[in-house]
């Protein structure tokens, strides 16, 4: 091929994030000498408008046909720069990034070796860039329908929003009724509104919405396809059915921490010891323990939360306010009862929470700082033994009702569901969002979104907010009516392919088949997810994944395997080193 690369290299200071540890100037100058490079520049913030303009001008002025930016992780800014280059009609796939921040300047000291590493990474990117090929992104139509897994408050809210927006929604609930954990609550904080009031309305709407199909006692058994066009198998009672949807929202909820895992608290041993969910039930009838009204009630917070020893290092976010609410209820129902709350930190962070906490104390609830160590039986009562860390003294509090504020845990079946949907999980075991800040409801799987406590502990308000957020994000492909098909997929070289079919046997997505007559393999770009396992399986190098081809990777290897301190070859005449900053 007569193509000669004209590569522009752009090295970012990222303020001082890179410049403080990497000699950006040296990298820029070194890059200028690399084969194919016609211009090499550095700038404070390549991602800023002027930074992007710099690149765009060079593409126009110097006729660049390949661009390399050395800055942060491609996971951060690749889309930004791809958009920038395509804005001036350079194919976005003719762009390559060198990750000299996350994987270089941020993890190494300011030293020659760090700069050398940066040079290698840039060289590697340049070598790959020289071999990059323009690719076309295709659009595929989407099925204007959604699947919601889980019939709790999150699932229902998400389903309703999508249905209200005019799309068919299938809601799959494992149990026989809608409502999830919220259905078990008596009243909500901080308004003390009866749960039934708010939940009832939602369940009512969900069950009667014209575009919302509720399947109870149902579960998803298989998920195929991809964003915009998922094929879902659902086992519904005894029959199996298949639905096609464009987006999937996971709202599978959480499990309650099993207080037996803290045996020193006597749950399951002393009838006087119950959990917060159990109190929700109790508080709906007359509050009696062992047939009599409790006179001394003690709440213990952080049972199964903030507990590294039990693998629950995280805060369950709701217990503080659940406790405050229940303590208030006890004061209302049993005006003569003494109510004590043992806490480590009171986390009243939500709207109206601190005020509610104030009101709870004003109602006569005694808050004592300390994490009770054990419960023991003394006569017909139990004794809570703790240190009041503010008195600095060990204390014993007699109680005839002890309520353990149990935390939220990932559902036991999270694994199974994760496998089914190919979802990643955070270290705390909950489903992992695509980005904790800016993509809190997306997952790594395009078209699959998270709602509610399956992503991490949340109260009702946050759950609903997040459910609606998931709904909005899921609606985007549905409303657009199309999704962009991955361009970096596998491609078969018919000249080289011997049709051995090893690729087909290894492909998870059934993207490869034997051509009926040619005796070579054929790849289906829509099914192909671009993992590249096929390319590895092919001994003759007949299959390549676009944008990650054998030649491109080998070119990178050739650069990075050469650990000699980078040699400065005199920059070719037309190459230009420039530093506007």
């Amino acid at each position, binding site marked *: 091929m007569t193509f000669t690369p004209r590569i522009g290299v752009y090295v970012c200071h990222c303020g001082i994030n890179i410049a403080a540890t990497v000699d950006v100037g040296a990298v820029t100058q070194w890059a200028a000498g690399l*084969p194919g490079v016609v211009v090499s520049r550095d700038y404070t913030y390549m991602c800023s408008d002027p930074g992007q303009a710099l690149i765009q001008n060079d593409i126009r002025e110097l006729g660049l046909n390949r661009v390399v930016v050395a800055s942060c992780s491609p996971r951060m800014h690749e889309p930004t720069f791809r958009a920038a280059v395509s804005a001036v009609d350079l194919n976005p796939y003719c762009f390559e990034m060198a990750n000299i921040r996350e994987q270089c300047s941020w993890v190494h000291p300011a030293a020659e070796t760090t700069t050398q590493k940066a040079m290698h990474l840039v060289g590697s990117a340049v070598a790959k860039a020289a071999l990059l090929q323009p690719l076309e992104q295709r659009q595929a139509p989407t099925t204007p329908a959604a699947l919601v897994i889980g019939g709790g408050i999150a699932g229902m809210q998400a389903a309703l929003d999508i249905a209200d927006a005019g799309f068919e929604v299938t809601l799959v609930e494992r149990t026989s009724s809608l409502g999830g954990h919220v259905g078990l609550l008596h009243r909500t904080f901080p308004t003390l509104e009866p749960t039934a009031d708010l939940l009832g309305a939602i369940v009512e709407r969900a069950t009667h919405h014209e575009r919302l199909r509720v399947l109870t006692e149902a579960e998803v058994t298989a998920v195929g396809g991809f964003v915009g066009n998922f094929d879902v198998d659902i086992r519904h009672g005894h029959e199996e059915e298949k639905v096609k949807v464009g987006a999937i929202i996971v709202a599978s909820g959480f499990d309650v921490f099993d207080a037996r895992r803290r045996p020193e608290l006597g749950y399951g041993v002393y009838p006087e010891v119950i959990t917060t969910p159990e109190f929700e039930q109790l508080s709906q009838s007359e509050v009696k323990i062992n047939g009599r009204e409790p006179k001394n009630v003690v709440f213990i917070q952080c049972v199964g939360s903030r507990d590294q020893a039990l693998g629950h290092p995280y805060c369950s976010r709701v217990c503080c306010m659940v406790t405050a609410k229940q303590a208030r209820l006890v004061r209302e129902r049993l005006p003569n009862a003494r109510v004590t709350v043992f806490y480590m930190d009171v986390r009243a962070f939500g709207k109206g929470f601190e005020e509610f906490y104030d009101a709870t104390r004003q109602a006569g609830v005694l808050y004592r700082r300390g994490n009770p160590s054990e419960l023991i039986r003394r006569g017909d009562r139990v004794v809570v033994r703790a240190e009041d860390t503010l008195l600095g003294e060990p204390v014993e509090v007699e109680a005839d009702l002890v309520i353990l504020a149990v935390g939220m845990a990932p559902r036991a079946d999270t694994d199974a569901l994760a496998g089914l949907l190919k979802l990643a999980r955070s270290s705390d075991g909950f489903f992992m969002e695509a980005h904790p800040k800016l993509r809190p409801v997306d997952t790594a799987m395009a078209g699959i979104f998270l709602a509610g406590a399956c992503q991490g502990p949340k109260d009702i308000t946050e759950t609903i907010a997040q459910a609606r957020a998931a709904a909005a994000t899921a609606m985007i492909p549905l409303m657009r009516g199309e999704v962009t098909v991955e361009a970096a997929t596998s491609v078969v070289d018919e*000249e080289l392919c011997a049709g*051995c079919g*090893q690729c087909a046997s290894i492909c998870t997505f059934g993207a490869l088949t*034997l051509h009926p007559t040619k*005796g070579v393999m054929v790849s289906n770009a829509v099914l192909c997810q671009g993992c590249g396992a096929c390319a590895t*399986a092919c*001994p003759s190098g007949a299959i390549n994944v676009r944008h990650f081809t054998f030649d491109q990777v080998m070119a990178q290897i050739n650069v990075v395997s050469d650990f000699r301190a980078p040699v400065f070859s005199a920059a070719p005449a037309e190459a230009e080193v420039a530093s506007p900053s």
Partner: protein
Amino acid sequence: MKTTIPVEDGDVLAAIRAFLGRLLESGALEAIYVPLEAAGGAAVPALVTDPARMAQANPLAPVMPINGARAVSALTGKKAPGRVGAVLRSCEIRALIELVKLQQATLEGLTMIGLDCPGTFEVPRYMERQGQAGGGLGDYLAAAREGRDPGSDGLTLRTACQMCLHPAADQAAIRFELFGLDPTQGIPVDIPDALAEQLGYSAASADGARQAVLEKVLAAHRAKRDGALAAVRAQMNANGGLPSLFNACIRCHNCMTACPICYCKTCLFRSASFDHKPDHYLSAAQRKGALRMLSDALLFQLTRMNHMSASCVGCGMCTSTCPSEIPVGMIFSAVGEQVQAAFGYEPGRSLEDPLPLVTFQANEWTEVGEAK
């Protein structure tokens, strides 16, 4: 069924030729792949359709110019064009089965005709041997009967054959048995019942001492093999190790060309990916101060191991064709043995065993990938 082919005045070869001829005449097969004796005494693998040509056929010639699996792959492709037969040795059959798994050949419409194989000589040895007294067929068959090495001082079998653990062509449909038997009295053949009836053979068992002799042969080969592999492993692990073993390699790719498993249309190392620009060589040379030309010799061998060692049947054709007399086959057998052991895989045993690298289990090698 087991039957016996009658042999007239001890001419075993004639009997076999006649038998092959009848397979064609009877229309049981349309063509048969078998070596024909050609001018100069060479035995040339050929596809025979004319029964008359069977006069030159010599399946008993102790030589294997090519691994027949390649030939069969060529003439069956993804489906045999007609009713084809192929006279093959065990190593050829096992290679063929691997190729079938790799969709480079098919057993559909193919009749495999196998012989007990006492071993083969390198082509030059075979030619020499032709002239010599006692180098004839009789001695070869006798060696088979007694289970001894048909080679003699100076004229040794191919090393691969000396250490062959599969001398019997178990997977063949039609199987000529030689070990522990005296074929001059009639050649015991294992043959499908239908075909036997068509050709008018009736059951007749003459097993004799075959099993015992086979054991003896295997024992001898195993001993030989262990010694040889131990030796080559010693070399591979010695200072310089594998690289020095391949220092003599001229990257002629003969090993790959002769290998029955290397089925690629164009080897990766002959593709554009390794057709480097001049500046590539220069910069590569600058790294270590010198660059081997042609480059990537060791990488080529290692990659080939990685591609085919799981399926290597140890036919030794690579060694036979190596102009630098590198013990390629020995090396690949040594490596292949370990790879195959790791996956509990025996190449060529059965079509049922999946190729180890295109399958997996979720709960295997769970220790792999975790820090020790």
